[in-house]
């Protein structure tokens, strides 16, 4: 190979390695040379190894800290399931002892433990313990008597109409659950994975549809009592045919109990709250520890959260917001966002990075893509959906066509002082704010907060930019049909937002105001 030729290839390589653009012809030239020349290949790949090592060595202490902190947050999120159960156990134990009134609370303990630990130490099959609350007199509570010998084989209470990624739970045992299989009394059903789902049908045609990563435990029904179950986590949509007088369907969650006579509704449970969305009829919702129930009727929703003495009932005004997150148990920031959306009146559904369910999207007002999403998993899966999308994972801006067109050009995340400079104060997403606004803080150190940014195309509304860096938009949006760098026309409104997940990060009041305005504008179509 001539020196000129070699220098030419080295120049191309150096440009590629520094993420400078290469023309298609140049890419082909370099690709062909790499494919043909082993010596060149070894040299360039060796060069890339040195480049990677230098980049790693050159990271500052603050970046290293952020990496370690992010890891600690992920571990904490992974443990949430177990922590959640322990918290429920402690909370219920304390409440039962304090109030001496809740007959069901003790019975939730093994149920909760069964989800996360998978180790309820009941070796033999047992009758449905929820249905056998052994309260000897008002105010006296004791644990269910252990089954010591051969218990009668429990009766079938329901059948699986359909199942994907579903498991039956019988105490500590887990068994794959297939469509058509009977569900014995006292058993549970759990869906595992972002695409998992299952539908249970009872003989009276009542159906319970479990969403992804949902645990429904201790399903019971039988003579002299109504259907009952414990929804430990996830989302359940029910179509309940009218139940016999005096025998309503009882659904218990860690926070609440829903009493149902006949209706359609969705119940969503996370670590700190239970949300009920009623589509038809009415449902009585009360705290699991007692107190007067609240009646929630069609087109209303109610939330019972930690700290709420009673269900908060609101009208369903905003439709459904679909959150795409990295951890379904929700990292801290995702949890705050979810609560905020609920406060705005959205019914929030949470999904992982699986492909979009186009049928589900027909009823979704806005999709929110969190920075907790592993961008490599999501890629362009949601790029073309005709539903408004708001993204705060900068690595996905190019995948959505909002920046680019080269991969990861014009987007990123960086340490900041937490300020945004409003450039279009008249835009609805500016929410009436103007000038430099502090939007993010971590409470004590304003110089180490992280913000996402992007460099969108000229058709975008550059609502706010990074102070001193006018080419970094921290809040921007495209109207439906507007040309974007990576797509000829936005399939629906698209918004890039500066939020970036970090366990210590907080939006200020102004930050949340911009968040509300951005969601509202995006969903406004």
């Amino acid at each position: 190979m001539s020196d000129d030729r070699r220098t030419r290839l080295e120049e191309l390589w150096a440009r590629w390695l520094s993420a400078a653009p290469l023309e298609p012809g140049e890419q082909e030239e370099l690709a062909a040379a790499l494919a043909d020349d082993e010596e060149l290949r070894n040299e360039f790949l060796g060069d890339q190894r040195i480049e990677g090592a230098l980049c790693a060595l050159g990271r500052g202490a603050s970046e290293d800290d952020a990496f370690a902190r992010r890891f600690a947050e992920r571990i904490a999120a992974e443990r949430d399931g177990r922590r959640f159960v322990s918290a429920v156990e402690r909370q219920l134990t304390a409440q039962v002892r304090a109030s001496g009134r809740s007959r069901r609370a003790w019975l939730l303990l093994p149920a909760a433990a069964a989800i996360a630990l998978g180790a309820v130490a009941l070796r033999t099959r047992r009758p449905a313990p929820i249905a056998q609350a052994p309260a000897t007199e008002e105010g006296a509570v004791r644990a269910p008597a252990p089954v010591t010998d051969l218990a009668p084989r429990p009766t079938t209470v329901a059948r699986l109409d359909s199942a994907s990624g579903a498991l039956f739970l019988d105490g500590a045992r887990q068994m794959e659950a297939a469509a058509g299989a009977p569900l014995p009394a006292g058993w549970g059903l759990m869906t595992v994975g972002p695409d998992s789902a299952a539908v249970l049908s009872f003989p009276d045609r009542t159906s319970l549809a479990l969403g992804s990563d949902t645990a429904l435990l201790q399903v019971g029904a039988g003579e002299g009592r109504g259907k009952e179950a414990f929804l430990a986590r996830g989302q359940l949509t029910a179509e309940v045919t009218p139940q016999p007088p005096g025998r309503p369907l009882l659904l218990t969650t860690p926070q609440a109990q829903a009493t149902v006579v006949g209706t359609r509704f969705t119940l969503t449970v996370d670590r700190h709250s239970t949300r009920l969305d009623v589509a038809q009829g009415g449902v009585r919702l009360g705290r699991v520890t007692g107190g007067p129930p609240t009646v929630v009727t069609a087109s209303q929703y109610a939330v019972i959260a930690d700290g709420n003495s009673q269900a908060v009932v609101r009208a369903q005004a905003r439709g459904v917001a679909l959150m795409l997150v990295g951890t379904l148990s929700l990292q801290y920031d995702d949890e705050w966002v979810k609560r905020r959306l609920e406060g705005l009146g959205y019914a929030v559904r949470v999904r992982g990075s699986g492909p979009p369910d186009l049928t589900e999207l027909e009823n979704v007002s806005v999709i929110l893509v969190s920075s907790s999403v592993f961008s490599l998993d999501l890629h362009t899966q949601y790029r073309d959906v005709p539903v408004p999308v708001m993204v705060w994972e900068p690595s996905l801006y190019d995948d959505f066509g909002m920046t680019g067109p080269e991969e990861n050009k014009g987007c990123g995340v960086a340490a900041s002082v937490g300020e945004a400079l409003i450039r279009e104060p008249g835009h609805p997403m500016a929410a009436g704010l103007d000038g430099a606004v502090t939007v993010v803080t971590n409470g004590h150190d304003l110089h180490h907060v992280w913000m996402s940014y992007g460099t969108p195309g000229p058709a975008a509304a550059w609502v706010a930019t990074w102070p001193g860096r006018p080419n970094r938009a921290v809040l921007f949006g495209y109207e439906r049909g507007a040309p974007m760098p990576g797509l000829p026309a936005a399939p629906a409104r698209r918004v890039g937002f500066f939020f970036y997940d970090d366990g210590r990060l907080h939006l200020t009041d102004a930050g949340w105001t911009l968040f509300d305005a951005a969601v509202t504008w995006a969903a406004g179509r």
Partner: protein
Amino acid sequence: MPPSPDRTVDAADDEGRLIEKSRRGDAAAFTHLVSAHQGRVRAYIGGTVNRPEVVDDLAQEVFLSAFRSLETYKGEAPFGVWLLGIARHKTLMHLRHEVRRLARESRSLNLVLADLQVKVLEADEMLMARREREMAALQRCLERLPPQGAEMIAERYFRARSIADIAKASGKREGTVRMSLLRLRQVLRACVEQRLTKEQA
């Protein structure tokens, strides 16, 4: 200056204690291990993946996998080498996925490179310990760069300045800066190879 033998023993001892604590579920102890080893893991992944945010995500996945499977670490190899084995696996999975994705999208250069990197990693199974030593050798070689070259490396990699900024500040063209950096990396690579060969001898 290389660490004294005593300090090395102390460090290994500390690491052993942190691993034991982590095995018992102490996430804080494991986070110390993350802090200590993230540079090597990132360097290993960054040696084949040219997107910093992907390197970051993969490195996180490596440590999560390590934390979950800590029981399988028996101490036959140094902990850092064990981590690099996981990093190799994760990177390989990612690159294979990339090859499939890029094959659909016909991005020829990236496809060729991802495919080459898959082959390199597939052949790299026995070289984890060598990768560990490469990192240490690179640090020594950096100290031996002439001042002007060291300054340019520092600007680019330690102060994270863009090629354009460096070019502007030094009154050079961007292409010249890129080529200068390439030559400096070539010098470093030769130096690393030389040190490793000497160590082996």
